[in-house]
């Protein structure tokens, strides 16, 4: 289908209060048809309350070859996890 129906990435928000989550992709000619197709392909089982579609080519992705330099330096910095605090019982789940 080539350029006539480019690729779109689909994001669905399952419930109010949650973030839109990537669920997959599809081919469509334009925004309206992409939203329509996303509704038909990805919300058949009550998965969502809101849909975003984004042209796949509009997404900039990190380079897998640079995963080492991007992500490994965080490995030994456990102090960045907020696990060293005592949380009063009254606070409950944070």
């Amino acid at each position, binding site marked *: *289908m080539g350029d006539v*129906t480019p690729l779109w990435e689909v994001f669905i928000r399952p419930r109010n209060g949650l973030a839109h989550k990537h669920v997959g992709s*599809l*081919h*469509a*000619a*334009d925004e*309206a*048809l992409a939203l*329509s*197709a996303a*509704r*038909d*392909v990805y919300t*058949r089982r009550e998965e969502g309350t809101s849909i975003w579609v984004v042209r796949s080519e509009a997404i900039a992705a990190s380079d897998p070859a640079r995963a080492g330099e991007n992500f490994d330096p965080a490995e030994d910095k456990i102090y960045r996890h907020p696990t060293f605090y005592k949380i009063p019982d009254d606070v409950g789940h944070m």
Partner: protein
Amino acid sequence: MALYRALIELADDHLVLGHRLSEWCGHAPMLEEDLALSNFALDLIGTARSLYAYAAEIEGKGRSEDDLAYLRNEREYLNCLLVERPNGDFAHTMLREFYFAAFMEPFWQAALASNDKVIAGIAGKAVKEMAYHMRHAGEWIVRLGDGTEESAARMQAAVVDLHPYWEELFSGGDCDALPDRAALRPAWEASVKAVFAEANLDWPEPVYGQNGGRDGMHSEVLGRMLSDMQYLQRAHPGATW
């Protein structure tokens, strides 16, 4: 029995169109539309089931929704001829869907206020489905009509081919529990004209309309469709799984 008959007309419209759309399953031009058409088919067949179940209850002869769908002959089907038209190409299918949904959406909208609670309940669910069918089919009509030379020619050909069939949508049995079909014509025409204007499609000159579906007088294609749809229950009566 005015209500029974009107329910059968409505249910037959939904089942026949739903079955037609299901014939696209696995054959649509792209995966996305294959699923969309199957979704449409399921919406329509779901509504047909509710209507048959209610009709069977009103009839009070112990028949079930399956009996009504699978064990009636062609001449007992009261659907309008539009819904039995063969799928043709994608343009034909989308136009047929739009004509039907543009009628049913205001029909169910009016039926929400029905004094019959079952009808109002069916309407509450169906009105949203029809609004979506209208939008989806309408989007395609605009893109095909205002698309390439070939898509525009095919869309216009579909308009000409289906022109004798839309008027029968406004005929059908009268009963107090259901909206007056003829009164929905201005709303239908406004929806169609808006999409046609955007799609650069011409509304053809009036032609002699084909009808008779409400009296069980069908075109040859319905018999073939029913023989396919009813085969299993006819060959293995009472089969369940």
